[in-house]
């Protein structure tokens, strides 16, 4: 650590806002004028805007990156304050962007992978009628994701957090005319709400806990046992500044939070460690609530259920959102708050245990899925579990490293699966693929490379990141119990074995053997036996029709890729053609991602144990962002043990690969089918994802519906009853009031008026116009006056 005082000081960089601006502008143009552009100028205009915006964003991110590389490690905190959004007491929320090495890494991943996937989408979505809408959502997603990773405070991050959730909803349910897809989008959105709730509550408690009693004499916080009292700033008081110049108190800014916790002279870390909240350790409560948010966004137990369903979206969306970027937001957040999590052993333990459980659980479901995208979805859930093991045991850089390598190889796998799906005419069932290696060579090699990386074979990136995570898990000393690290290692290693197995299973099922698609059968059998053909087609339809309604709808919704741009397979215009390689816009992207997936690991994560004289490149780069690295302790059993564990990693990967090869190569082995018959119940449970969806349906969904029914009843009968009673009461009062008004007030007014009218009517008789009668009056008056004078006297 080059830093001496462990305080991060910001460098103002005034143009960081340009990075998210470009995708926002692209989304605005495509959202407002996209449809007209598509009609007038063609789809080229839409993707030119979207891809152009991403490229510009990429360039600015690159400039920022090289500027950061040029800066000294202590100066790598770029900030760009735009304006203060609101201020209320101690709460001051700025719209500001910040890039520290962690944020920079994420920004680079997001901008670059998003650009590649935008390019890929121009090929994959070429026949989509609502092309502009797709690119609108994609650009908006990139914008939201950049807000999430670049926001320098919780609020901007949360804007992005919600924004990516919204875009995820819009893109999963992109073909919203299909009810299943619309439902999947809604599921993702609703499940994420649960997580967001945790996030927000955690944030409130954190903000609250940052106030407290402050002693100006010692410049320290006075420890308290329970969290109570007011939030600071409710009354005016002088700013709290520690001896090192750090401003203290409730804050939304990550950097200020980091500083007040990292700076030992403030007493903040001790204070937080000792505080309790309703009898629980405060930090554990905060961190676990934040982690609940992370489980929603990053699809961990128990909130992972939305991610497999999210595969209903277009494949580039699955690659960008549900593999490379959005689902890593939870990992990113935990890594971002490393200084908090590292202070709380229970929180770290929870994160690591949930991570490892998710890893093994999702991997086991992945074993028996037939939908290629479902396999990849469960693989993603599982790999995210590995990332949480990393950040949970305190190896923050390793978790982030796996995040990065996963972004490359999983994006490559998803895009490869998209290419395969396109090649097989929107078929997602691996049982109907097979033998694609001769039709789609580029897709095959890139897919293989990515499998190689994810399985953890040496020199491809997954080996370095996964090995580092598992090694750190074995040596972890920061968890609640000393044996937990070893347990996590063992379970994680089994999950890694599973990863290798199901990935190579999907590879062998898809690319080796002979093509089993319906069209292939038809062609072959037409030559051989016309009678058998009819029967087979019939049977085929009977089998496929119910189980692949979604796939059929897919075909319906997305007119095929077979237009003029599709030079690779000119014969494949009819629906029943042979598989074909995808257009160049897709294959080039695959190659780029496969290349990154293979080499990124060795470049960024060359282990210190292998020589080279220093810590891995990425660890050194991320060090300023991760002050907690000094807090978390790991055992150091020595080089030999480390080599042994690396060998274990290799052995696990090889074992998984070997098993998959034996069982699934060329679809020759009958063992899988026999196994299925032998253990139908166990197979059924795993194939049906342990019935978790059904359990959720029975408990959470049913419970929610019941709750809503109760709420509806209360609303209808109690609240409405009260409201109606109040209405009745008001009406009765109004009647009384109306009566008073009508008879009393109006009566008085009308009576006065009547009196005036009647007296006037009576008096006007006096006005006879006869002058002599007036004289009588005058005379009478005079006489009366005289008489009165006489009488009174």
């Amino acid at each position, binding site marked *: 650590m080059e830093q001496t005082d462990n305080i991060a000081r910001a460098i103002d960089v005034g143009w960081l806002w340009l990075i998210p601006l470009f995708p926002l502008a692209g989304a605005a143009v495509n959202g407002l004028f996209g449809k007209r552009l598509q009609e007038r100028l063609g789809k080229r205009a839409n993707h030119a805007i979207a891809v152009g915006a991403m490229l510009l964003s990429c360039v600015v991110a690159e400039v920022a990156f090289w500027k950061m590389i040029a800066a000294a490690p202590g100066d790598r905190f770029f900030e760009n304050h735009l304006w203060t959004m609101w201020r209320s007491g101690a709460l001051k929320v700025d719209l500001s962007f910040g890039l520290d090495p962690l944020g920079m890494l994420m920004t680079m991943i997001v901008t670059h992978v998003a650009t590649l996937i935008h390019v890929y989408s121009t090929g994959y979505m070429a026949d989509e009628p609502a092309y502009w809408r797709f690119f609108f959502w994609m650009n908006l997603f990139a914008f939201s994701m950049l807000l999430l990773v670049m926001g320098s405070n919780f609020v901007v991050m949360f804007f992005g957090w919600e924004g990516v959730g919204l875009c995820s909803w819009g893109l999963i349910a992109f073909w919203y005319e299909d009810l299943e897809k619309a439902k999947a989008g809604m599921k993702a959105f609703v499940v994420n709400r649960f997580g967001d709730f945790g996030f927000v509550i955690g944030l409130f408690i954190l903000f609250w806990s940052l106030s407290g009693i402050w002693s100006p004499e010692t410049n320290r916080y006075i420890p308290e046992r329970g969290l109570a009292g007011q939030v600071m700033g409710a009354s005016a008081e002088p700013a709290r500044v520690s001896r090192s110049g750090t401003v203290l108190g409730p804050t939304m800014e990550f950097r200020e939070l980091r500083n007040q916790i990292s700076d030992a002279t403030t007493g903040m870390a001790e204070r937080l460690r000792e505080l309790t909240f309703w009898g629980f350790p405060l930090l554990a409560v905060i961190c676990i609530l934040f982690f609940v948010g992370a489980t929603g966004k990053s699809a961990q137990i128990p909130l992972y259920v939305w991610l497999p369903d999210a595969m209903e979206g277009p494949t580039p969306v699955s690659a960008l959102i549900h593999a490379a970027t959005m689902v890593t937001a939870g990992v990113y957040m935990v890594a971002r708050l490393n200084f908090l999590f590292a202070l709380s052993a229970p929180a770290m333990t929870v994160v690591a245990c949930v991570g490892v459980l998710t890893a093994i659980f999702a991997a086991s479901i992945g074993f028996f899925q037939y939908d290629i995208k479902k396999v990849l979805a469960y693989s993603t859930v599982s790999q995210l579990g590995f990332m949480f093991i990393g950040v949970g045991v305190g190896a923050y850089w390793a978790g982030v490293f796996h995040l990065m390598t996963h972004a490359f190889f999983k994006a490559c796998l998803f895009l490869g699966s998209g290419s395969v799906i396109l090649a097989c005419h929107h078929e997602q069932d691996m049982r109907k693929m097979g033998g694609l290696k001769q039709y789609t060579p580029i897709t095959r090699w890139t897919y293989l490379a990515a499998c190689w990386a994810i399985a953890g074979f040496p020199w491809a990136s997954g080996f370095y990141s996964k090995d580092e995570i598992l090694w750190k898990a074995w040596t972890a000393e920061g968890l609640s119990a000393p044996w937990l690290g070893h347990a996590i290692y063992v379970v994680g290693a089994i999950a890694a074995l599973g990863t290798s197995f199901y990935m190579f299973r999907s590879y062998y099922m898809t690319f080796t053997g002979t093509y089993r698609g319906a069209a292939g059968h038809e062609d072959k059998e037409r030559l051989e036996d016309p009678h058998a053909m009819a029967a087979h087609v019939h049977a085929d339809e009977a089998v496929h029709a119910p189980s692949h309604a979604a796939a059929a709808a897919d075909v319906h919704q997305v007119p095929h890729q077979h237009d003029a741009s599709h030079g690779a397979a000119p014969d494949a215009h009819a629906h029943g053609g042979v598989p074909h390689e995808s257009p160049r816009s897709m294959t080039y992207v695959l190659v780029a991602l496969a290349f990154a997936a293979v080499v990124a690991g060795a470049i960024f994560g060359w282990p210190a144990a292998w020589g080279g004289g220093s810590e891995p490149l990425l660890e050194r780069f991320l060090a300023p962002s991760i002050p907690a690295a000094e807090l978390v302790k790991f055992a150091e059993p020595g080089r030999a043990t480390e080599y042994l564990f690396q060998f274990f990693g290799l052995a696990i990967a090889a074992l998984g690969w070997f098993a998959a090869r034996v069982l699934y190569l060329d679809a020759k082995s009958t063992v899988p089918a026999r196994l299925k018959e032998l253990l139908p119940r166990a197979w059924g449970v795993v194939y049906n994802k342990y019935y978790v969806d059904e359990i959720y349906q029975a408990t959470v969904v049913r419970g929610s519906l019941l709750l809503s029914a109760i709420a509806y009843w209360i609303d209808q009968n109690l609240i409405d009853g009260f409201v109606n009673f109040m209405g009745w009461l008001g009406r009765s009062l109004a009647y009384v009031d109306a009566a008073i008004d009508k008879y009393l007030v109006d009566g008085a007014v009308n009576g006065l008026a009547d009196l005036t009218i009647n007296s006037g009517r009576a008096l*006007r*008789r006096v*006005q*006879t*116009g*006869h*002058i*002599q009668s007036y*004289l*009588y009056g005058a*005379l009478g008056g005079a006489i009366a006056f005289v008489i009165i004078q006489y009488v009174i006297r």
Partner: protein
Amino acid sequence: MTTIGLPHFLIVGAALFSLGMVTVVTRRNAVGILMGVELILNAANVNFIAFNHYVAAPGTLTGQVFSIFVIVLAAAEAAIGLAIVLAIYQTFHTIDVQETSLLRE
């Protein structure tokens, strides 16, 4: 034989006033009413002179001067009254005050 004193004059004045009043009130002819008004004014003149002679200091002429003024005023009034009567006649073709009742309700 009693000497003639103030009460005798006052009785004459009152009788004149009453006759004038009755004329004004009962006459339907506008010219007759004007004549009644003359009687009333002259009744006042009698009173002025009588009071001057018996009540105020002898030798002063205040009452007499007042009477002169009243006579002048009566002349002016008669002139204007007759002009009004003429105008009434031109409008209504009669000088009966019972007929000229346009100012009623």
